[in-house]
């Protein structure tokens, strides 16, 4: 019988920008079981529906998470619009798509940087974040906010992206793409990167399905699912295929996210070229919502489910957000089994945990 001991991981840990706590049961250096506990960031914002009306909740929803904030606002607004049965103007749909894809780019670049930091490649970390700043500049130019835009409202958006800003986006994207090629080559070919990522933390397709994994985590294990295929916002008009890998290891997750950055660049170009030229940005929404709706959107971290239930009063009965990290936690616990203790920090990073999403 080997000696068993329990090592607490977190809440303050150098590889994590956010507090999450995991109890690791180890035998010598091998992890046998991992039990996460959350709650350091729990705010209980779903309960705010009683104090804020359904229009104000759009701004609360944006602040569930500062990284995918636009997509949270969009998912909530789409759910309420679905209950109202209103159709958002076409231009607003395209604007939402553009902001959503910019958000995906900056989120994935942020993650790639943190991953590089996780395996000790400081230079690569800084390079990723340097490129990411260009995306943030675009977000600031078009919306006025670097991270939290507050451009969504129930019925549409409140800001337009005029032609000159569209040209700036396209020219910046060309620069970003060029710089990303070098970063991609480093991630995909560098010996020291591959030695840390290849074959570590494998989740098979069956496991990923049984554990209900979402987003790039599931796609890296070969499950070709992408909620953008549902055609919300303007995704129905754009041409793309989910990016998948069959390996299911840490490198596959890195591969999927890196390729998704290029996919986002492509989607942005498509969206800008197809954007209709009307002036209407939002439709007026009259009265209060009555009904319920499940809305699914594809966030940078995977499928997010918004559940909105209303009873004809300004305040909703319930708003519930099932965030992708919440769905990926069981996958993480499974992945950590039979790994080396020294790999745990890196493996926790590979699911791209967003703790403030998880705990709300």
């Amino acid at each position, binding site marked *: 019988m080997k000696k068993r001991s329990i090592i607490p991981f977190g809440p303050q840990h150098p590889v994590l920008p956010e507090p999450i706590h995991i109890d690791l049961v180890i035998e010598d250096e091998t992890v046998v079981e991992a*039990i996460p506990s959350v709650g350091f960031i729990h705010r209980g914002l779903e*309960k705010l529906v009683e104090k804020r009306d359904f229009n104000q909740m759009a701004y609360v929803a944006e602040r569930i998470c500062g990284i995918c904030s636009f997509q949270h606002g969009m998912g909530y607004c789409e759910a309420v619009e679905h209950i109202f049965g209103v159709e958002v103007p076409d231009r607003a749909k395209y604007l939402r798509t553009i902001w959503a894809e910019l958000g995906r780019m900056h989120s994935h670049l942020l993650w790639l940087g943190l991953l590089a930091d996780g395996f000790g490649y400081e230079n690569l970390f800084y390079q990723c974040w340097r490129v990411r700043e260009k995306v943030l500049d675009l977000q600031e130019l078009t919306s006025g906010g670097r991270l939290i835009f507050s451009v969504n409202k129930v019925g549409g958006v409140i800001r337009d992206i005029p032609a000159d800003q569209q040209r700036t986006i396209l020219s910046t994207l060309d620069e970003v793409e060029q710089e990303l090629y070098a970063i991609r080559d480093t991630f995909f070919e560098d010996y020291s990167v591959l030695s840390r990522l290849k074959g570590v933390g494998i989740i098979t397709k069956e496991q990923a399905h049984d554990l*209900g994994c979402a987003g790039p985590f599931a796609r890296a294990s070969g499950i070709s699912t992408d909620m953008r295929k*549902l055609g919300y916002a303007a*995704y129905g008009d754009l041409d793309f295929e989910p990016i998948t890998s069959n390996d299911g290891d840490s490198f596959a997750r890195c591969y999927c996210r890196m390729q998704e950055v290029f996919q986002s660049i492509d989607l942005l170009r498509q969206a800008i070229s197809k954007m209709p030229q009307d002036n209407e940005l939002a439709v007026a929404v009259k009265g209060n919502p009555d009904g319920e709706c*499940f809305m699914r959107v594809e966030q940078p971290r995977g499928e997010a489910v918004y559940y909105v*239930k209303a009873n004809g009063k300004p305040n909703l009965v319930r708003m519930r957000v099932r965030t992708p990290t919440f769905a990926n936690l*069981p996958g993480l616990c499974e992945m950590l089994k039979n790994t080396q203790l020294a790999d745990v920090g890196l493996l926790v990073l590979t699911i791209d945990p967003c703790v403030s999403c998880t705990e709300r």
Partner: protein
Amino acid sequence: MAEVIHPLEVIEEIPAEGLLGKVMEKKNAGMRLSQACAVYNEGKYELSYSFADDTTYEYVTLRIVIDPETVIPSITDIVPQAVFYENEMKELFGVKIEMIRLDYQNKLYRIEKETPFKEEG
């Protein structure tokens, strides 16, 4: 042009006794548990268990409506990943769920206020 999928999205209302059987049925049909949540409305709990299909994007929600005193079985023996959803229901809403595979004993979020979502504001 990408093909837009318009999947089937339904809410099936079922009695509490039929929960485990239905969950088993969905699991055998190759669907994954996408989310589970509770609502406290007009003195009753509404529990929703949503199942998604990754290829057809079909979305089926099982809905049970119960009194606060009703004890319901855990689905974690069939779908182990429901652990976090059920612990959340139990801690935030006070839903009585028995035999959760990994029961955090109301210590998942470790909040000071007891079952904050159970009262209507």
